[in-house]
């Protein structure tokens, strides 16, 4: 059966600016908002947009990601044909196929894409927090009869030089692309979301390989090549919450914003659910001496201390008299007694022993996954 559009999620990036949090897992696998991992947003968008075939391209530290996605059933993407397929770099007769860039990763998976014979391919990065109906974008792409449609979002002009900026004419056709321009001509930033006519993209990739031209990156190579050849590229404007959580401070900030139940993302909207793996855990146990204010808590937590303006992921334990403020605690972390945590991110399975104080300032303190901080009195 011919597929209209399949999605390819690029989830191989390390996200090195997240430091300790991406030492042992790829950025899309990093915990977010208590219950989620970053990739849940793009995967759920696919599922909600009616896309039934999704390739997740992994490379860097994929264990956590593979485990999280599983057979796709948590995302309602476990179909007999299609569904979610994890695509990893592999050896072949042509040699190693480690991905050298975003477009290169797609090139190495031509076989997978062709096996689904799509008219269009949607390229996503698995590291943004947003809700988007890709079906609407496809409708737009078709209406414009575009070779490529790039989703763009208006950013404040003073920040525009941090982004890939698309300059458009009055029909929304992209006429110029400036990667991180010193003097931006517009404030339309690329969201790294592309819809390609697959046959044309494949042709570009093949020809580049034959002529040994570097076509490894969408932003650096493909988009400029399309522009040079006069292909029709259109900008698709997205309005709504969109956040790149590429740094510790942006990850922390996005989490803090997420606590507010009136948050623009509207996570409680039943018509556009964000799916995730649902772990088995007993209910949240809030003890007699606990205090929980302005916080998001997930099943499996045991809280015997004070939690304010924070997010606690599943199975987090908080001991007696401990205080947690403005912090994000990732799954299975254990916080001892009399601990003070402020403006901090605590990684998965980390252990904070009794009486430890971790107080972040302008810079958010980070405890890595599996780190053990302080020695408990029993052992000392």
């Amino acid at each position: 059966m011919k597929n209209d559009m399949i999605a390819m999620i690029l989830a191989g990036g390390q996200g090195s600016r997240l430091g300790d949090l991406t030492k042992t897992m790829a950025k899309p696998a990093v915990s977010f908002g208590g219950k989620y991992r970053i990739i849940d947003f793009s995967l759920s968008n696919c599922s909600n947009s009616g896309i039934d075939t999704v390739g997740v391209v992994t490379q860097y530290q994929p264990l956590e990601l593979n485990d999280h996605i599983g057979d796709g059933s948590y995302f309602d993407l476990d179909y007999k044909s299609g569904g979610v397929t994890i695509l990893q770099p592999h050896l072949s007769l042509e040699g190693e196929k480690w991905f050298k860039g975003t477009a290169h990763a797609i090139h190495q998976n031509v076989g997978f894409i062709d096996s689904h014979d799509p008219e269009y391919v949607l390229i996503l990065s698995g590291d943004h927090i947003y809700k988007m109906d890709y079906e609407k974008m496809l409708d737009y792409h078709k209406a414009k009869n575009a070779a490529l449609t790039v989703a763009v979002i208006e950013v404040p002009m003073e920040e525009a030089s941090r982004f890939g900026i698309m300059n458009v004419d009055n029909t929304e056709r992209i006429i110029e692309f400036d990667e991180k321009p010193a003097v931006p001509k517009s404030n339309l930033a690329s969201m790294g979301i592309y819809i390609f006519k697959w046959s044309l993209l494949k042709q570009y990739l093949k020809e580049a390989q034959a002529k040994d031209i570097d076509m490894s990156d969408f932003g650096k190579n493909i988009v400029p090549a399309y522009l040079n050849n006069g292909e029709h590229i259109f900008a698709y404007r997205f309005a709504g919450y969109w956040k790149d959580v590429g740094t510790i401070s942006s990850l922390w900030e996005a989490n803090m914003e997420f606590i507010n139940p009136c948050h623009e993302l509207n996570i409680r909207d039943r018509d556009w659910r964000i799916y995730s793996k649902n772990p088995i855990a007993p209910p949240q146990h809030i003890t007699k001496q606990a205090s929980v204010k302005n916080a998001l808590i997930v099943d499996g937590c045991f809280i015997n201390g004070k939690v304010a303006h924070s997010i606690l992921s599943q199975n987090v334990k908080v001991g007696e008299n401990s205080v947690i403020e403005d912090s994000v605690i990732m799954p299975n972390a254990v916080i001892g007694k009399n601990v003070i945590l402020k403006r901090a991110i605590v990684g998965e399975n980390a252990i904070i022993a009794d009486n430890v104080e971790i107080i972040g300032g302008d810079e958010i303190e980070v405890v890595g996954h599996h780190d053990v901080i302080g020695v408990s009195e029993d052992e000392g």
Partner: protein
Amino acid sequence: MKANKICGILNLSENKEGLQPLTKNRPLAAMPFACRYRLVDFPLSNMTNAGINTIAMFLNENNRSLFDHIRSGKEWDLNTMYGGLFVFDERNADDFSQENYDNSLNFLTKSATEYVVIMGSKMICNIDLKTILQHHKQQEADITVVYKKITAPIEAGDHDDLSVFEMSPAGQILTNTVVGKDERIEAESSLSLEIYLLKQDLLLNLLKNYRETGRDFSLDAVMEQAVEHTNANGFEYTGYMRQIYSVNSYFEGNFDMLEGSNLSALFQENQKIHTKAKNEVPTFYAENSDIKDCLVANGCLLRGTAEHSLIFRNVVLEEGADIKNSMIMQGAKVGAGARLDYVIADKKSVIAPGIELIGTRENPIVVKKDEHMESSRKAEIG
């Protein structure tokens, strides 16, 4: 291949009258428990945790809620190529009794397992069935029955019909006495959990023999008789246990879970209790909320005050709502300023703002499923 393998029979044709009106539209096995579970999760998880992947479910009533919960059995890894979950709905049979005998004999013959374990859902426990199999083999018993030594007496009227054993020092069951609900059960009694493990061949024979007597199909009766007429052995269970037979015992069982020791005994890490996965958002605790001594599930919006209560999935507690000693079940809404003490608010019920529902521990006020409660109520004392 069949050596040491066990299949399971979930005997869910259970008496639920004591729990009305909560059981009006659901079997006992589908009763919600501890914020995010249902009673059937316990026997089902116990079985699958022991590697049992062929399970028959015997039912006798409206089970939509139960099927909706179990679905393909995926959560218990029962959606396998071989084995899985087999449902025998006793209501639709023309000759109810004959068909049930046939079904059970068929199931047992086909399951190709050496042993069978039988459990219901009215006794909440978390038990390691592998250890029971080991014990069973060591004792060379025909049937192993699980019991618990009760530490306090159970007063007349505080229980359903229960069985009590007398055993030899080696654990052989000498007598099996049914104690009617109007009699007291003394402390130190060995109370049957009505969990049986036996060879599949033996159960086949027992069923055939029982059928020949011309009596109606009743797995309970077959097993009761078998305990008396074969070499039956007791296995002592020492973990958390509660028998659910009335609104009150149901209420108390849920509140047991507020004790950390009960909660960790029943939901122990190495014997997980599985349940239907729901895609719920994290629970939000507002700045003005005050939640203490509570169990809470995902998906809630908590703006009010709660103490010593169980808050199930997707509950909304509006500002100024004040609940104590209550169970607020899935999707229920408690309006602003409403005051609840000793209340069971069933699924999707709505408590109007400002009203007061004051029950007592012995006589909690039940708000029915989907009911909109718009006026204050007080439990009658006595």
